[in-house]
Each structure stands twice: as structure tokens, then as C-alpha cells.
């Protein structure tokens, strides 16, 4: 299908590309096969812009902007791989690791974790900040799933998928700053939730081992965030049996 949307000329790290009007910088990069690392962004969900991993430099004044929440404009010059951005991404990741209790060696998602992958990709080999080591209770009240807030990075993918795709809005974020934590309904155990449909989309999209299937051991939890894209395509185009074409 030919795209008839008006186009703009932009460049990523000095290489020229064509972007569509109204498209975000991140979407444009992904479509053209250019890598911009990201965490909270997930195709098929609304844009959150909270993780700040996808920041890029935009030539005018070298301002840092989140690629997921910035639209392409004519003659935009976007820098992705600069020393400043590499350092910035590393810092953001280190802060994420310092803020929770991310112990890969005992995590259900070890080896299959987007946060871990991002750390490897960015060359983050140690954390320069003090670990906050917060005390957070694991919620294993749900018969099918387990929620471990220690591994949560508050990307809100689960909140968004539950609200926008499933339509249940079981999840939300309570409190603020360092005290912010995911909750289900009135901060009650997940298992007691009346609105949860057990659909498991929140578990599918979790980038870390925070949400996992009950009974998974170390490194056994594989998430399926692309499911949301498949679902979006299925619903919008009426194509249910073409997962390859959807991705």
C-alpha cells in the first residue's frame, strides 16, 4: 500500500531520510531501520515519554528531546550517537538501576529483559550512584501472575495497556517521586481485584521481570510486548492471521 502522506526531509546523524508529517522522530527512525534505544515506548500504546532513554539531540541549539514525543519537522537534523547522548543514556540507566532492586542473577527475566539489554547496549557496566535499596513487598496474590515492585521501572506500559487496549484500568501509579509505586485498584492485593480480567497483557508488555507468570524460575520468563502491535493491526486492518506482516 502506497503511503500518500506529505513528507519532510530529515537527517539522522548526518544521513538523509524521508519522514512523514505528523510522525514522531522515533517512529520515523524505526521505519527507516535506524536504531534509537527506548524503554517505555511501545508501538500500539499511547506515548508516555517518561524513561528518557530515547532522547536525541535536535540541531537547533542541540536541545535534548525525547524521540518518542517529538514530531519530525522539515530539515530536522537529529543526532543519536554523540558522546553527550551516550553519557546521558548511561546515567539514566544507572539511576533506574539504583532506584529499585534490580538483581539480575535471581530475576525471572534474566537474559530476556529489556532493561538488562539496554544496559548491555549502552555499555553500562557499573552504577555510580548509591543504591536506594527500597523495601517493597512482592504481590503474589494473583492466581496466575506475580508482581514484584522491586523490579519495576515505572514505564507505565502495563497501566497504558490495561487502560487503552484491555479497557479495565486495573493499574495505576500511586504517590510520587521516590515513593511512586504501581497499584491495583485501591492499593489492594492484585488477587482481590474485581476489574482484572486475567488477560495477561500487562505481563506481556513488562520490559523487566516485574510482572511474570506464577511459578517461573530464574531466567524463565519471556515477555511478548510485540503482541500489542499484532493486536492493533488485527483490530484496525482486520488481519488476524498475519503476524509476520504486522511486525
Amino acid at each position: 500500500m502506497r503511503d500518500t502522506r506529505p513528507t519532510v526531509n530529515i537527517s539522522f546523524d548526518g544521513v538523509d531520510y524521508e519522514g512523514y508529517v505528523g510522525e514522531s522522530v522515533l517512529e520515523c527512525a524505526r521505519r527507516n531501520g535506524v536504531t534509537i534505544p527506548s524503554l517505555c515506548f511501545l508501538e500500539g500504546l499511547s506515548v508516555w515519554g517518561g524513561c528518557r532513554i530515547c532522547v536525541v539531540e535536535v540541531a537547533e541549539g542541540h536541545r535534548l528531546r525525547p524521540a518518542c514525543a517529538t514530531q519530525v519537522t522539515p530539515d530536522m537534523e537529529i543526532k543519536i550517537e554523540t558522546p553527550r547522548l551516550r553519557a546521558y543514556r548511561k546515567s539514566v540507566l544507572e539511576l533506574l538501576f539504583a532506584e529499585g532492586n534490580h538483581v539480575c542473577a535471581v530475576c525471572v527475566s534474566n537474559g530476556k529483559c529489556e532493561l538488562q539489554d539496554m544496559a548491555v547496549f549502552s555499555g553500562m557496566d557499573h552504577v555510580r550512584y548509591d543504591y536506594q535499596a527500597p523495601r517493597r513487598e512482592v504481590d503474589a496474590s494473583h492466581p496466575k501472575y506475580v508482581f514484584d515492585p522491586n523490579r519495576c521501572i515505572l514505564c507505565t506500559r502495563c497501566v497504558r495497556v490495561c487502560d487503552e487496549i484491555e479497557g479495565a484500568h486495573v493499574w495505576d501509579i500511586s504517590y510520587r517521586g521516590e515513593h511512586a509505586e504501581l497499584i491495583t485498584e485501591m492499593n489492594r492485593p492484585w488477587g482481590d481485584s474485581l476489574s482484572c480480567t486475567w488477560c495477561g497483557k500487562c505481563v506481556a508488555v513488562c520490559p523487566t521481570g516485574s510482572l511474570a507468570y506464577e511459578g517461573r524460575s530464574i531466567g524463565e520468563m519471556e515477555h511478548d510486548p510485540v503482541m500489542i502491535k499484532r493486536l492493533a493491526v488485527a483490530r484496525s486492518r482486520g488481519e488476524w492471521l498475519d503476524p509476520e506482516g504486522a511486525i
Partner: protein
Amino acid sequence: MSDTRTRRVAGATDSQQGDHPSGDNRFDLVDKHLKRARYEQDQLIETLHVAQDVFGYLSEDILIYVARALRLPPSMVYGVATFYHLFTFDPPGDHSCTVCTGTACFVKGADDIVQAVSDTYSVPAGETSEDGSLTLKTARCLGSCGLAPVVVFDGNVLGHQDTESTLELVAGAVGGGG
């Protein structure tokens, strides 16, 4: 604060003869606001303010009531309410003692005042004593730095306080302490 509350509640029961289905007529005041706000979902924060004014704090029941009235998911209401420091989720004590810990008051020894009241009545800052008689709070800055250190007791702003005068004040209203 508690006076205003009782007066308002009394006014509500006078003007509204019918009993609120919940069995608590204070919900009439929340309903009144909701009606004026046309049950618009963007009125959530205002509604929570009204509810806190009426009840003194936000209990889980109140949050669920507001969530139902505005047709919002409970987790969203809980999330919004906990995001703002102005909302409180524990019933306030009979008396409240707020000590300003802004820069000027801090320099003039506000921390000692907080410590003294906290020790004497065994109530941590920001919480209410076990018998519910006293709530000890701290404020960032009340904007009256010339009066440092400032203590607000039951709504009355008092300047140039020290440990002794504050303890005397609290003892006068709450009792011996300890």
C-alpha cells in the same frame, strides 16, 4: 478546623431532610459539589478537596464513592489522591500543631521544637498521636520568616516560638503529655 467541620455538617443536615443512602449525611455536601460540577471527570481533584474539607481526611470508602460518582477507575482516583501532599488519608487529631521548618525557622531552632513535641507526646512528625489528640505536622515555609520560628496551633499562627512556649501551648490544649 473541627469547628468549621461540625458547623458545616450541621448545616447540611438542617437543609437536607432526607438521609443520605450511605447513612452519613456528610456525603450530601460531596454530592452537592458533584452536581454543581456536572459529574465531569476533570473535577476529580476539586471533588477530593471538597471531600477532605467535609470529612477531614480521605478514607478508602470516600475515594471509592468519588470514583463511582465520576465513573473513574478506582486505581486512577487512588493514584491522583496520593500524588498530592495536600490530601491526607488518616483521620486528623483533635488538635493540630504545625511547625514551620523553612530556612529561617530552621536556623532559629524549629527542629528542636519538632523534636520536643514529638518526644513529649510520642508522635512522629507528620503523624497523629495514638489517642488521636494531637497531629504534629511540619511545613516548608509559611511566608512569615520575620516571625521565625513559626508554629501554627489549631489554625492560629504564632511567631517567635521556642521549645518551652510550644510545649506549654500544646499542654494547655491537649494535656500533660507523655
